[in-house]
């Protein structure tokens, strides 16, 4: 289960650091490895309003990050599902918004696309930029339809982000099957209250 895995990763220590996660062999192929690892250490993904990053995390924090990936149960009401979706979207948003200013700027978005395409061979930086620009423009045009030429679209705010990804139904997609679901959800539930 997760506790065992945690201990395995940390080499039987109490906390894990970035290097521990870095050394997982399967992650080597992943284009967004750095972002994923960073997300574990991001304080914003824990409950509470802190910002910044940990250097090491304990099992509680590890579990808290994992909580974001729990699936919805049959018994959830619509509000709970909505709250869960917001939580997952928030997680994604935090992954993109690296400087924690509340918006995903064009630069940040460009970086995201670049990283996504990084392992796919020699892709010109132009293309990545073009794609990011296009995506940004789309967000801008869907959320702020009548933009005067003088206005400047600062960046994707969380509301816009939610709006854009409404169609993807995050609460059904962003899930991992956990080995022992009950303890995890219990803990997640306990931590929220």
């Amino acid at each position, binding site marked *: 289960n997760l506790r065992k*895995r945690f201990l395995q990763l940390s080499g039987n220590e109490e906390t894990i650091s970035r290097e521990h996660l870095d050394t997982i062999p399967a992650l080597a192929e992943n284009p967004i*490895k750095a972002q994923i690892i960073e997300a574990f250490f991001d304080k914003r993904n824990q409950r509470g309003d802190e910002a910044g990053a940990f250097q090491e995390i304990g099992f509680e924090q590890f579990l808290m990050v994992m909580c974001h990936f729990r699936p919805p149960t049959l018994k959830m009401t619509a509000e709970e599902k909505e709250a869960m979706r917001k939580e997952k979207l928030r997680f*994604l948003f935090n992954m993109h918004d690296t400087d924690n200013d509340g918006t995903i700027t064009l630069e940040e978005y460009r970086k995201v696309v670049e990283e996504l395409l990084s392992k796919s061979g020699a892709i010109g930086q132009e293309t990545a930029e073009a794609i990011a620009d296009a995506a940004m*423009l789309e967000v801008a045009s869907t959320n702020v339809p009548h933009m005067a030429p003088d206005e400047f679209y600062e960046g994707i705010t969380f509301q816009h982000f939610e709006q854009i*990804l409404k169609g993807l139904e995050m609460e059904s997609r962003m899930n991992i099957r956990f080995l022992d679901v009950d303890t995890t959800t219990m803990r997640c539930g306990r931590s929220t209250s």
Partner: protein
Amino acid sequence: CALHRGAPSCGSSARLTAPTCVLLLLLFAFVSVASASRDDAPGGNNETGRAPPEDSHHHHQQTNSSTHHKKAFPVLSFNYEHVRQPFEISLWILLALLMKLGFHIIPRVSNVVPESCLLIVVGLLIGGIIKAIGEKAPMLDSKLFFLYLLPPIILDAGYFLPIRPFTENMGTILVFAVVGTLWNTFFVGGMMYAVCQIEGAQLGGVDLLSCLLFGSIISAVDPVAVLAVFEEIHINELLHILVFGESLLNDAVTVVLYHLFEEFSHADTVTVGDALLGVVCFFVVSLGGIMVGAIYGLLGAFTSRFTSHTRVIEPLFVFLYSYMAYLSAEVFHLSGIMSLIACGVMMRPYVEANISHKSYTTVKYFMKMWSSVSETLIFIFLGVSTVAGPHAWNWTFVIFTVILCLVSRVLGVIGLTYVINKFRIVKLTKKDQFIVAYGGLRGAIAFSLGFLLTNSQLKNMFLTAIITVIFFTVFVQGMTIRPLVELLAVKKKKESKRSINEEIHTQFLDHLLTGIEDICGHYGHHHWKDKLNRFNKAYVKRWLIAGERSTEPQLISFYNKMEMKQAMMLVESGSAAKLPAIVSSMQNIQPRGPARPRAIPSISKSREQEIRKILRANLQKTRQRLRSYSRHDLLIDPFEDGLSEVRFRRQRVEMERRMSHYLTVPANRQEIPSVRKVCFEPEHQVYTYDTDGESLRGRRASHSHPSASDAAGLVNESTRRPDQSGAAEPRPKAPDDQEDQDQLTLSRCLSDPGPNKDEEGGGSFLS
């Protein structure tokens, strides 16, 4: 003739042309009612209608006269025999299509009643007419059905199968297909045997094996019927793929069970060994079918790699390889349907990367067309066969069959869902279960299988029962499912806007989840999918895709496709190209910098290039892409990326010429055709677009393959809209200079109050 049961002889040609006569009459009547005027059809019909009575006479006369003396040179002769078979086949197909046409012209009926019901009713009518004039109506010949009518439908389904939801729900679908069908078979078979034991029913002659055989025939959910009904109700993707996937995959089970019981009913004893062999047979049939299909699919993909010089025959490869896969599977009594699906699924990604845009359109069109025709014919024939076939009506048997089918389906679904939900992340709700149970329609496959039965004593009774069940499911369930879906407020299919943001995040999510799984050490769904993708990219694509397309990552190809689509739409529609809106939007999202080109002093080559670069560098306007599996509309297709430099240059020249006329000649509708003249391939216009000048935000210049870095951009002009009068800034007068052109165009559009919303513009672009 495959359509007729008896072998026609020469002398009876007059008799057999009578059904044709009837058809012609019916055609004639229908045609004149349904539409205003169709001059060609009645004319042709009249001529041949008049002919049959004279046929025998002529025939007689000619044979007589030829032996006696030199007959006069026949100026006009009649020889129907020569063309009878293809003539009749064509007539049937024509009739079927005209019926289909008629239904869509009368909207009231087609909203209430699904098309399949109407077609069966038509078939009944025709069968009735034929019988009334004393002719023998054609039956739905099993060979015809399995070899000619069924494959196009299955191929269409398999080729356009949405892979992602299918693989995500594969476990559920398999459980429903295999276990569900087994349960249905044994339940219905067993209970029917119990029913047959009832004294008063006169069913004593039906033994257990026959009942089980009957159970196996009747228990399979039919893909044709499911497709026909579900297409029209547009439920959400999950339910659609569950029912549809089940109907496709249960073919293996049906084939095995059918052959098993058929064999057993001829044998004297059944041993456990036989039953075990049956299980083995199931695996052989299904996996063998899939393998055969996969092999043909790979062959097809490989062949398409080399077809760059003979584009015209590309579509044929797709069809022929698929058909061969089906036939090869049928040779070994493997599951033909699964083979066909496997072939289509295997072939599609590689073939689509290789073939030209025109070929792709052709493939799509032809598939939809053939499957549509097939489906129509199947339902009409079902109706005709009902009237024509020998029936043995037994109240008890039939009633109990219908009831038991329903009961077993409901029980099966509930029971299986209970088990499946333990393993699913997204559980199936009660509503979902209801729709899945209710959507278990039986159709023509059951009928054809029943037709193949050899035991004629029970065959008629079975056939009657099968037809009753089919009618019940198609009519009752088919008609009521739509209001029920509304009533239960089942989630409908969302019109998926494949926006680039969604695409980016889908990919991102894939990687993210794979990463998290790796961190957890849990080798789940995503992990294996990722491995498969990497294997695919590293080895398979290199072999099967020609040229540089093989190394293109998915996001890039998606992006390119959207751009091409944009560009094509832009050029084709010729309306409001907000070239400057693009510039302004770009300015909106770019960080404020010192050099923001607002007013362009002069048009020089370099400036043109810069504008083009800006255009090229971005702009995405997404369109609604109707992800539909329906027969009636086709997906909008991206343009092929092989636009030649020549065409671009030609367009650029055209554009410049037009820009110089721009302000002197008020833009009106007449200009659009000339734009179309320089279009890439106007005949690609498979969609209709909104031509009343609704402009869209964010126009896109066409952008060819990333490697062609200096491809010329397309500059479209905007047609002047009548409602642009609300501009805040005064429009300056138009001098005739080229350079001022651009400036004015830019400034005008910069002051534009804003285009219509995305949805309106997008929706109108699709047929």
